[in-house]
C-alpha cells in the first residue's frame, strides 16, 4: 500500500506550490500548468496535493483527478529514484528497442510503468526522444544512452546501483 503524504512534513512544498499558483492566477486555464509544477515539486501527484490544487484553483476534485489521470506524464503514484525511459518511437522500435525494454524489464523484475520494490528504478516507455540517429535509445535521469543492445544493459544499470 502507498502511504498517504504527510502534509505537515511537506509544508514547505505546499507553500512553494501556492506561490506558483498565485503567480499565474490571473491567466485562464491554469490547471495543467499547476499539475506540471506540482509534479516537479512533489515528484508525483498524491491525493493530498490534488485536493490542495482543487481548492486553490477552484475546480472540482473529480476534474483535477480526471486530468491528472488522463495524461501519461502525470503520475498519481510515487516514482523510483531513477527514471528509465526506453524510446519506443518508430525509429527506435524498428531497430530493436523493444528487446532493450524487455531486457530491462527482466533485469529489474518490473513491467513497463512499474517501480522496483526497493524504489530505485521506474521503468517507462517513451516516444521519440529526438535523437533517432542514436537509435535504439534510452534515457536514465536525463542521460541519454544510444546504439543500445540488450547485452549492454546490466553494465549501464550497475552505474546507478549503489
Amino acid at each position, binding site marked *: 500500500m502507498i502511504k498517504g503524504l504527510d502534509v505537515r512534513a511537506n509544508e514547505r512544498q505546499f507553500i512553494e506550490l501556492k506561490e506558483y499558483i498565485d503567480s499565474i492566477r490571473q491567466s485562464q486555464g491554469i490547471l*495543467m500548468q499547476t499539475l506540471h509544477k506540482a509534479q516537479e515539486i512533489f515528484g508525483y501527484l498524491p491525493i493530498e496535493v490534488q485536493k490542495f490544487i482543487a481548492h486553490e484553483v477552484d475546480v472540482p476534485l473529480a*476534474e483535477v483527478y480526471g486530468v491528472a489521470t488522463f495524461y501519461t506524464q502525470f503520475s498519481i503514484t510515487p516514482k523510483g529514484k531513477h527514471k528509465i525511459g526506453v524510446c519506443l518511437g518508430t525509429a527506435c522500435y524498428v531497430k530493436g528497442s523493444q528487446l532493450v525494454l524487455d531486457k530491462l524489464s527482466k533485469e529489474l523484475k518490473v513491467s513497463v510503468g512499474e517501480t522496483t520494490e526497493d524504489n530505485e528504478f521506474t521503468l517507462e516507455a517513451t516516444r521519440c526522444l529526438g535523437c*533517432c540517429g542514436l537509435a535504439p535509445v534510452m534515457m536514465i535521469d536525463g542521460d541519454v544512452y544510444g546504439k543500445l543492445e540488450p547485452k549492454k544493459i546490466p553494465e549501464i544499470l550497475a552505474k546507478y546501483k549503489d
Partner: protein
Amino acid sequence: MKIFRSHVLVCGGTGCSSSNSALIKQRFEEKIKELNLDEEIQVVSTGCFGLCEEGPIVIIYPEGSFYARMTVERVDEICEEHLLKGRIVRKYLFDESAREEKIKPLSEVEFYKKQKRVALRNCGVINPEDISEYIARDGYMALGKVLTEMTPTEVIQLVKDSGLKGRGGAGFSTGMKWSFAAPNQADQKYVICNADEGDPGAFMDRSVLEGDPHAVLEAMAIAGYAIGATKGFIYVRAEYPIAVHRLEIAIKQAKETGLLGKNLFNSGFDFDVEIRLGAGAFVCGEETALMQSIEGKRGMSRNKPPFPANKGLWGKPTIINNVETLANVPQIILNGPGWFKSFGTVKSPGTKVFALGGKINNTGLVEVPMGTALREVIYDIGGGCPNNKEFKAVQTGGPSGGCLTKDHLDIPIDYDNLTAVGSMMGSGGMIVMDEDNCMVDIARFFLDFTVDESCGKCTPCREGTKRMLEILDKITEGKGTMEDLDKLEKLAINIKETSLCGLGQTAPNPVLSTLKYFRDEYEAHVLEKRCPAGVCQSLLRYIITMDCKGCTKCARICPVGAIEGKVKEIHVINQDKCIKCGACMDACTFHAIIKK
C-alpha cells in the same frame, strides 16, 4: 556587431546534445581562449544540422569544414591545426568531405545537395538563443512589412496565393483557414501553434523550435495581424525541454526588443505569445482536443463543426497551425507567392521536412521540394539501408499513415500521391525498414500505440482498435486464422468510417496498408506459423548449434528444465517445454544458442 574571422558552429540539437556536444563547445571555448584567439573566433551553439547520424557535428566557417562524430579529445588538435595554423584536420572530417583530393564543404555533400531549405533555413546556421542573429538573416522583416505596408486582407490573399498547405498532416490551405477566422467579430481571437508533434518517430517540429524559434514567433504575429488576434499560444510537448527553453528565451528577447508586445512597429498592433505544455497525450495534437488541453481540461476531441475559426479556444475564433507551416510564412511574405511556388508541385507547392529514421544510413532531418521521389530521399540523401540489407518498406505518416514498398519508390511525394497509395504525408515521419523487420509486427506496434492513445470518447475507436490489436496479437503468436485477416479488414474499414476524430479515422491505415502490400507475411504467420523476418518472439525457436561445448550452463539456468544433455556433449532444447525466455542464449558463453 563584432566581426570574427572564423566561426565554430557546434550542433546543439537534441541528437548531438545527447552525445555531449555541450562539452565539445565548452572545450572549444577554453582552448580558443588559451590560444588567445577569442577575439577572432566565435563559438556558436546552433540547432540541428540535419545529419544527426554523424553527430556530434561541428562546422567551421568560412571554409565550411564538416567535422563529424566529434569528441572532446579532438578539439585541441582542431584548434591548434585548423584555427591557429589554417590546416584543416582531414582525418576528422565527415568521410565524404575528405574522400577526394579537394575537400568538400558542407554545402556540396550529397546529403545536402538535393535539399532545399526553407523551413529549416536557419537551423544549424544561427545561434537560436540570440535574436540579433535571426534579425541579421532578415528576421522580423516580414512582420515589419506586413504591419507597415499591408492590410490583413492582403496578407491573407498573399498566403492563399502561395498555395501553402498545413504541414501538420491534413494539408488544408493555410490562407483559406485564416480567411475563415478573419471576418468573425469577437472581443478576443487566438492564434495557436501546434507543437505537440505526436508522431512517435518524428522530430521535425522540435528541430525547428530548437534551431529557429523566432521564425515561429514572427509567423504567429503575422497570423495574428491577418485574422485580428492579439494573443498566441504555443502548445509544446513537455518532453521537449530544449525547445521549451529556447522558446522562452526567444519570447523574452522578442519582448525586450519590442518585436512582441504592444504597438509593434508603431502600427498599433499588439501581440503576445504564451507557452503551454502538453503532458503526453497523442490525441492532444488534434486541434479540438488541443484547445481543451490549453483550457486545462482532459484533451478529448469533439465534433466539427463548429470549426475553431468560428468557435475555438474558450469559444473564441481561433486558428491552429503547425510549427513547420508557420516557419514557411515569413519567407513567403518576403519572397512572394511566385517564389514559393517555384518549388514543389502545382498542387503542393513548397518543401517538406522529413525526419528520416530507422534502417537508413543517414538518419536525420531533410527538407526537399514537394514532388521529390521517395527513392531520392531514401537513396540519394539517406544513403539506403545499412549493412547491405535489402530495403523492404518505408512508413510515412506515423500512426495515421501506411507502409509502402519498393514498387512505390518512384512516386513523387505530395499529399495526394501518398494518400492515393494508402499512406499519408502526415507530419513528416519517414521510417525505413529492411528485410529484418516484420510488417505484421510493425502494424501491431502502431495499433498498440493508438489503443493506448485513444481518448475513449467514441466506441469504434475505443473498442474497435482494441479488437484489432487482439487479432494482431493472435497472429503474431501464431494463433491466427485466415478468417482473422478478413475480420481485421472489416473492422478497419468500419473504424475508419465511423470514428469521431482523425485519430480513429486513420488508426487502421498501418494495418490496411500492410495487409494490402505484405499479405504474404500475414499468411506466413497464419498458415505456416512462421515469422519470415524472425521478429515475432512466439514463433521463434531457440536452437543449440554445433558450437556447443557441453558446459551445461544453459541446462542449469533454464527455468523450465527444457534443456537436456551430458557434460561435454551437444545439448538439445525440448521445444515443447521451452517458454522462449531467452535465458539460455544470454548464458551461453560460446554463442552456441541461436534464435530462428
